[in-house]
């Protein structure tokens, strides 16, 4: 199992408590399910079946509804992700500027495929569609806020180095 999951295990209790508090606070807001899922994914890193069941119970809705929403949206994932999620934009502008080659290089460097986590749990690779920085194409995003623009395949190792610790 990946490192990511173990750290989750260790903090299990507190994470559930925090999620529960969030649900309590937003319960009155109609249609809060998606917001709750966003929160849960930010806490746990992904949305395993137990977390979904917990949410369903707390919100008083069927588990199938929660599952239906989780599977509909690309942003939600039921697979654990790396500590650093490396997102490669494959939107039109990035594609035209050669993002596929950046992605390929990344897969080679990290020796994993798309949606897979590296052995040490440090990285996972994801394809995304347009990060809204098309003028900087091709764009790579690590985590939520570290944007890299005009990336060439050769820059990939340099970018990863910062996160290798």
């Amino acid at each position, binding site marked *: 199992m990946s490192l990511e999951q173990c750290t989750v295990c260790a903090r299990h209790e507190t994470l559930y408590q925090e999620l529960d508090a969030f649900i309590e606070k937003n319960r009155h807001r109609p249609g809060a399910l998606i917001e709750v899922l966003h929160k849960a994914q930010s806490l746990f890193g992904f949305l395993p079946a137990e977390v979904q069941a917990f949410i369903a119970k707390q919100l008083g809705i069927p588990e199938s509804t929660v599952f239906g929403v989780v599977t509909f949206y690309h942003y939600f994932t039921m697979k654990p992700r790396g500590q650093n999620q490396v997102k490669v934009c494959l939107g039109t502008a990035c594609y035209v500027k050669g993002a596929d080659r950046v992605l390929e290089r990344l897969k080679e460097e990290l020796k994993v495929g798309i949606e897979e986590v590296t052995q040490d749990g440090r990285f996972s690779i994801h394809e995304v569609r347009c990060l*809204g*920085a098309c*003028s*900087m194409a091709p764009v790579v995003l690590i985590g939520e*806020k570290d944007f*890299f*623009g*005009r990336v060439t395949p050769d820059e990939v190792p340099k970018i990863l180095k910062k996160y290798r610790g």
Partner: protein
Amino acid sequence: MAKVKSLEELMKIKEKSLKDLQMRDTEKKGKIVVAMGTCGIAAGAKDTLQAIVRELADNKVDDMSVVQSGCMGLCEVEPTVEVHMEGQAPIIYGHVTPEQARRIVQQHILSGKVVSDLMVKKGEI
């Protein structure tokens, strides 16, 4: 904060902040505006901002304000930085790497000379 209820009250806020925006009658010598949209950040605007703040501190400049803005749209030359000295037309610089940012502080802020090779535009956008 007092709630705005009338045109007069809104006008008052406008007049006061317009002065700051246009660098007239402020206490500061000038301001440096770093464009911090997502694309600016993708082009490295965060490092540029840090370099500016550090260079100003290292030179003990405390009468310049450093603020952020959205992007001005010319992504090709990001990161962009606008230097607006009191009473003068703002100058917009492009391709401002941390290194160039230090140069801008040294040359424009400290010595009053525009760094012409980085200049993209003079005056308001």
